[in-house]
């Protein structure tokens, strides 16, 4: 079955997650993604090549679990762009590619000799999408980032926390994932524009711009109402104001570090929670309507916690769900990956085969297509694993020429 994007070829300079996550989506849908790495740096363009977790005791650039996860279904080639022959081969590759994608720091592609103008001279309708923390223009263009810095500057870290505490932030690089999603969106939209008009273009993606756009209502509140910047200790993101709900929170349950999330959307949910809990306090007239509950959130949280504390988190959530109230156990990785019937039924954890690591489970996609569904079978590429396939099969070099290029340090 052809993939939705089997007709596309991506010349891929991305790395880590913010870039690799974008081309990963395209590769799973059938695009031929050719990942270019530097033979001299031996994989160090992407720090994740050697980072934990590892499948066993082996270490090195072919054993990084994150790299494998983020680069499934891609081809990997090596190309030394310090050499004229290396640059020539890249030009040949760009000439037959639809997209060039990269997430280096601003200015790196120009220094390599392959900024947008150079790419466009090779192929007039090329789609070039760059992705970096602060974009390619603006006072901070040379600043360096990774997920946590993007999240801090764009306002997302601040918006995650409990009262009287410093910001909790995000316990993972939400904006590396999400920067990758915006990069994939940008690539696909630019291709749509090309289909319609014949024009290629450069898209300058700044992860902090994308991050800031994810707090839209709060930005408007500041701009429209002149709302003063709140104190960090006033944030309570386990509660809900959009829309207002109460009780709404993460409550302790039986077991060590076990928690259950509960959201009463409306008066009906509240009454149903009271029934399910069999609690007298739930019949208190003060709590019957939303305004009363919002005025007594601390008190409500203590009452709800009193009920959840002695219960298993899954049992508590199931009892509330049976009454139609949104509730869910805060799942540990093992619970959601190996015990949640929904992720299994979806096929969310496909097994890929990596040349060195063997069979490894990876993140699947949270979308299914009725006609052209995704596929993940091949693990992330080893360094230069597909040199023959790409330089031979695609660019027509013979085995002797490839061997000579390898000997000369071009590949």
């Amino acid at each position, binding site marked *: 079955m052809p993939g939705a994007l089997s007709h596309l070829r991506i010349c891929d300079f991305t790395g880590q997650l913010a870039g690799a996550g974008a081309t990963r989506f395209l590769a799973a849908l059938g695009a031929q993604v050719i990942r270019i790495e530097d033979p001299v740096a031996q994989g160090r363009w992407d720090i994740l090549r050697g980072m934990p977790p590892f499948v066993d005791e082996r270490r090195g650039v072919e054993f990084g679990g994150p790299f494998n996860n983020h680069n499934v279904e891609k081809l990997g080639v090596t190309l030394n762009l310090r050499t004229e022959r290396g640059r020539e081969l890249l030009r040949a590759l760009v000439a037959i590619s639809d997209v060039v994608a990269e997430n280096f720091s601003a200015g790196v592609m120009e220094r390599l000799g392959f900024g947008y103008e150079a790419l466009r001279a090779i192929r007039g309708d090329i789609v070039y999408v760059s992705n970096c923390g602060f974009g390619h223009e603006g006072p901070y263009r040379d600043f360096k980032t990774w997920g946590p810095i993007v999240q801090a500057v764009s306002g997302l870290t601040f918006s995650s926390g409990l009262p009287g505490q410093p910001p909790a932030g995000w316990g993972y690089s939400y904006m590396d994932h999400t920067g990758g999603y915006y990069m994939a969106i940008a690539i696909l939209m630019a291709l749509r524009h090309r289909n319609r008009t014949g024009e290629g273009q450069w898209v300058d993606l700044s992860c902090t711009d994308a991050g800031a756009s994810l707090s839209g209502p709060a930005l408007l509140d500041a701009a429209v109402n002149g709302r003063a910047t709140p104190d960090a200790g006033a944030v309570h993101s386990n509660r809900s104001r959009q829309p207002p709900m109460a009780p709404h929170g993460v409550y302790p349950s039986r077991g060590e570090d076990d928690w259950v999330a509960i959201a009463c959307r409306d008066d009906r949910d509240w009454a149903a929670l009271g029934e399910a809990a069999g609690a007298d306090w739930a019949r208190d007239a003060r709590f019957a309507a939303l305004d009363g509950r919002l005025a007594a959130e601390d008190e409500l949280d203590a009452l709800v916690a009193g009920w959840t504390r002695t219960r298993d988190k899954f049992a508590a959530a199931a009892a509330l769900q049976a009454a139609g109230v949104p509730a869910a156990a805060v799942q540990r*990785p093992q619970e959601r990956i190996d015990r949640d019937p929904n992720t299994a039924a979806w096929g969310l954890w496909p097994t890929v085969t990596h040349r060195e690591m063997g069979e490894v489970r990876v993140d699947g996609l949270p979308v299914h297509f009725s006609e052209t569904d995704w596929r993940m079978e091949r693990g992330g590429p080893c360094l230069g694993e597909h040199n023959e396939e790409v330089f031979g099969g695609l660019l027509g070099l013979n085995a002797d020429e490839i061997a000579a290029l390898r000997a000369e340090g071009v590949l």
Partner: protein
Amino acid sequence: MTEGALEGLRVVELCDELGMLAGKLLADMGADVVKVEPPEGDPVRAWPPFLDDEPGAERSLAFWHYNTSKAGVTLDLAREGDRGRLRALIARADLYLESGAPPGLAAAGFDAETLRAANAGLIVVTISPFGRNMPRAGEAATDLTILAAGGPVWNCGYDDHALPPVRGGGNQGYHTASHFAVMAALAALLYRDETGRGQHVDVNAHAAANVTTEAGTYSWLVARQTVERQTGRHAAVNPSMPTQVRCADGRHANTGVPPRGPAAFAALCEWLETLGLADEFAETPLLEEGTRRERFDLAALAGDEELRAIFGAGRAAMNFLASRLNAYDFFTGGQRRGFQVGIVNAPGEALADPHFIARGFPVEVGHPELGRSFTYAGAPYRFQRSPWRIRRHAPLLGEDNERVFAELEG
């Protein structure tokens, strides 16, 4: 006027909060998005914050934000006449985006199969909390419960595990579902450009959260290890050092990756010197030692006591500087010296930041119904030839009924 990348694309949006961002992302790039609301209006119109803090169907800033560039019509889908209008809208559309459709609508001929039979090129994107026909599809869900069941909540919170884990703010669970809806819709559209064939895309918000937790997921998949939450930094299998510091002005900064290598130590010494703080920082001699260490092999840290002391002094110096400077000065002063550090901004602060302003991030949107204009969050990406642009403010309730219904009849 320059056209957006999705000019000419006809989209019908019948969405609750799971899909409203997806419609905005398409509309702000030029797609002709018609948002369908019930006669009493989308419930999001009742979400705060409100203009001047006064509730009102046309005053919700959340509704304003999520519905820019869309046209709006009201339909009473309990009535066959209005269902006919919706059917006609979808029959001429390229993309039908749905989430939280009223119960019974699918049975009334609005399932993907029937809709596609009437319009072979149609792309139907259905967003739901747990996916279609999945074991948990019947569960009631909100942003909080999706993120709790899906992994992000486990990853977020504080070193003190007596405090509950935290759901990050801003309804990001809904956002992630919408991001995947747009990615998938566009891929289906490119396939249709090649083949003329539409299809049905099933988007699962719980699965989207599950694959958006980085090491939280792959530590288990690869090595059966469990990450534990930590204050202001990545949840990790092995505890890491704190990276969040309260600055002199009471705001917070992220001290990022500690200095490693002689150049970074030289920059650190220069920074302390410039601020006149070198003498006050007790471990300055160790930093100077760091400038002389040519090999900085972190793998050898455990067996090299001096290197460990130097590395620790570098981290301590970053924390010291952050505590003595205002957060913005620490951020820019550190970054100008090559350190990957950040300021913890509140969401609104991006609008006043010189970098965001220089990039044109804050944009003005006219509200002729109020005779005013307001500053909105701007482009997530800058397209050189087919730009992102807010084409109009969110539709007033039923604002486009007359025009759209007339087009259907014409």
